[in-house]
């Protein structure tokens, strides 16, 4: 098929599929819009003078930004999964990891159900398997089939 006649991908189907990954918030335009000021706040921490002001009084520094109270609380608590839900992106949030002096992988481990030593060991053992982690729908279907079997 030539470039000129190639059909455009259906954007609604494309975006719906992105929401079908277990334990993952794909950074879509929708999330980028929602989390814009969270990410711009995080970006500001690349400047040493801003890092110093943030560290001196986190709440006061956050109050300078157009960020919701929910997001401010999540930032204060370093609740990264909530921040992902609110449109935060990990490359921006990593400015907060480094301001805290936290290694990237250790900060990432706080988003999982493991402790940092457990997470590190999982990585040394070859990482998390894609098995059972590919699709929310497929997992639900498999669980349904399993329930059905149990019921017979």
């Amino acid at each position, binding site marked *: 098929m030539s470039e000129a006649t190639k059909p455009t991908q259906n954007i609604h189907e494309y975006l719906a599929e992105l929401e079908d990954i277990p*334990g*993952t918030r794909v950074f879509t335009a929708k999330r980028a819009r929602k989390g814009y000021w969270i990410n711009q706040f995080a970006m500001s921490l690349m400047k040493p003078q801003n890092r110093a002001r943030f560290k001196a009084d986190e709440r006061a520094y956050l109050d300078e930004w157009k960020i919701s109270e929910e997001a401010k609380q999540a930032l204060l608590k370093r609740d990264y999964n909530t921040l992902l839900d609110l449109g935060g992106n990990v490359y921006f949030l990593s*400015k907060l990891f480094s301001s805290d002096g936290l290694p*990237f992988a250790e900060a990432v481990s706080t988003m999982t159900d493991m402790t940092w030593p457990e997470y590190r060991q999982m990585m040394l053992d*070859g990482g998390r398997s894609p098995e059972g982690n*590919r699709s929310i729908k497929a997992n639900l279907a498999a669980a349904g089939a399993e329930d059905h079997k149990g019921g017979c």
Partner: protein
Amino acid sequence: MARITAGVGSSHVPLLGVAVDQGKWQDDYFGPIFKGYEWTRAWEQEAKPDVVILVYNDHASAFDANIIPTFAIGCGEHYKSADEGWGPRPVPDVEGHADLAWHIAQSLILDDFDMTIINEMDVDHGLTVPLSMMFGQPEKWPCKVVPLAVNVVTYPVPSGNRCWALGEAIARAVASFPEDLNVQIWGTGGMSHQLQGPRAGLLNREWDNRFLDMLASDSDAVRWIPHIEYLRETGSEGIEMVMWLIMRGALGKSVKTLNRHYHIPCSNTAIGHIVLEPAD
């Protein structure tokens, strides 16, 4: 005339930069990774590229959430190492090749690729870590660099097919540059990794190796892998591998594999690299 003599695909994990900068590259953790790059470092000393077109992504360093270029080309004279929150990496400044970069930018636009042109920016680990892996710790980088930044963070990112086609267009642009230059193209990022959410830590050795096989083959099937497959199989950040397709697209139909290495893990990530030569 300028010519593309080789392509390299390589991970650009920031921790590798830390290992180099802090002299940890021979320890038990990093040793096997750096050993895997030994052959390639020696090969680069022989290959002596004049210029590397370095395809990478900016990790919220030069670009913030405000402006998100899909494909951006650095046309400046030089670039400094970015402060990513720890202070800039202690590496030499990166020297650009403004004449070649502007030539490529103009050629690509005439070839229907609507590039963003950047004159001034800092470059982060996405660009400086591959330089360290290939060249070690010289006083001055041994070649000039044309940075080519791709948005692989905010969806939709460019399709694999579009990346491959951009590579083909880059090869045409380089071939029409009148100066005699030995040019390499590097595609960086990946391989499988996920840095966010409860599914963080996902790695996929089997898929990554199949991807390397596809790059090494004469088929262009790899350009048609949809975004959703990268997401499901390689983690949310594995999508960076579309940048390797720009490199592969620039090498023509047939390639010869000079070196290939894969290692798990480095921090959250599967490390891989491949060195290819056009064989047409």
